[in-house]
């Protein structure tokens, strides 16, 4: 305790300044750690796992003749992926001793959710109009948009992955509808696995 006491004894105004600076320094450390950790909190192995389930879903969906069953399979896959993503993000954040819904986490969600909501709404419209063939392109495109925008708060490979999804979605919108499952297998399966591995290797997990 010798050092701070000595500083404090020197003048009247100093203790407050010292204290404020100390608080400011601690806040800076905390915010930097939080930002740095959430920067790399994208789950690599989680992405690989999501990619694997998507490949299975694509194989199952491609074998269906009934469009309703096709849709149910992909919706189930979406729910499963969300669950895996939430679990993986939580795990990685806990490993780094971070609150999951920190300031950075909130920012991420706020940019991730709007394109996803648009995707859900458009899906509903397309299903009601019987335009199921438009779904793969729409999903890939809007998921890619969500990843690009939210990826601004993450490491550089994340927005790149989003852009790849957007490109795949754009291709899907202009391709014969039979390609839909293959393109989704490429996107939700292949891209997730590829970028998941890159993230896991570079940013641990």
């Amino acid at each position, binding site marked *: *305790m*010798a*050092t*701070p*006491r000595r*500083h*404090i004894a020197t003048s009247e105004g100093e*203790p*407050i300044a*010292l*204290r404020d*600076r*100390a*608080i400011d*320094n*601690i806040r*800076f*450390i905390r915010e*930097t*750690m*939080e*930002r*740095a*950790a959430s*920067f*790399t909190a994208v789950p690599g192995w989680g992405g690989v796992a999501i990619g694997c389930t998507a490949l299975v879903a694509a194989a199952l969906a491609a074998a269906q003749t009934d469009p309703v069953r096709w849709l149910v399979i992909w919706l189930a896959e979406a729910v499963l992926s969300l669950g895996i993503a939430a679990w993986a993000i939580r795990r990685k954040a806990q490993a*780094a001793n*971070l609150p999951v819904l920190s300031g950075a986490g909130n920012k991420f969600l706020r940019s991730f959710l709007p394109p996803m909501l648009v995707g859900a709404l458009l899906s509903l419209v397309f299903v009601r109009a019987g335009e199921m063939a438009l779904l793969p392109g729409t999903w890939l495109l809007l998921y890619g948009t969500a990843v690009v925008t939210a990826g601004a708060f993450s*490491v*550089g490979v994340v927005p790149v992955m989003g852009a790849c999804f957007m490109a795949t979605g754009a291709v899907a919108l202009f391709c014969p509808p039979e390609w839909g499952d293959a393109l989704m297998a490429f996107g939700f399966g292949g891209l997730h696995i590829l970028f998941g591995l890159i993230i896991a290797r*570079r*940013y*641990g997990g």
Partner: protein
Amino acid sequence: MARTGAAPRRERERSGGRAAANDSGVQRELSPLELDRLIHERLRLGIVSALAANEWLSFNDLKRMLDTTDGNLSVHARKLEEANYITCRKSFEGRYPRTEYRLTAAGRAALERYLDHMEALIRAARDR
């Protein structure tokens, strides 16, 4: 607030080449509450904090996180490296060199000491 150049002894050693071993020896002499000038500087504190939350970070990721320039980051990273607070590994990604940093045990201990010091300052001001 102490800024860059607050650790003249270490910096003189730096010009004489790699002095990591000496520096960690020097570090021992600090009493627990003496301010560690080496990580007190803002950007260096930022580097150490960012690395405390990640095992490895590349030069470019650190630059993005800390919103700084190539020159600034490399100067301050080198100071921390020479004090043995961080280590780096270099590799190639295609044709581009890739530098990654990691916090050492000494660096983590230094950050913890620094945090303790700041907490002690706050407590001392409150107790008064």
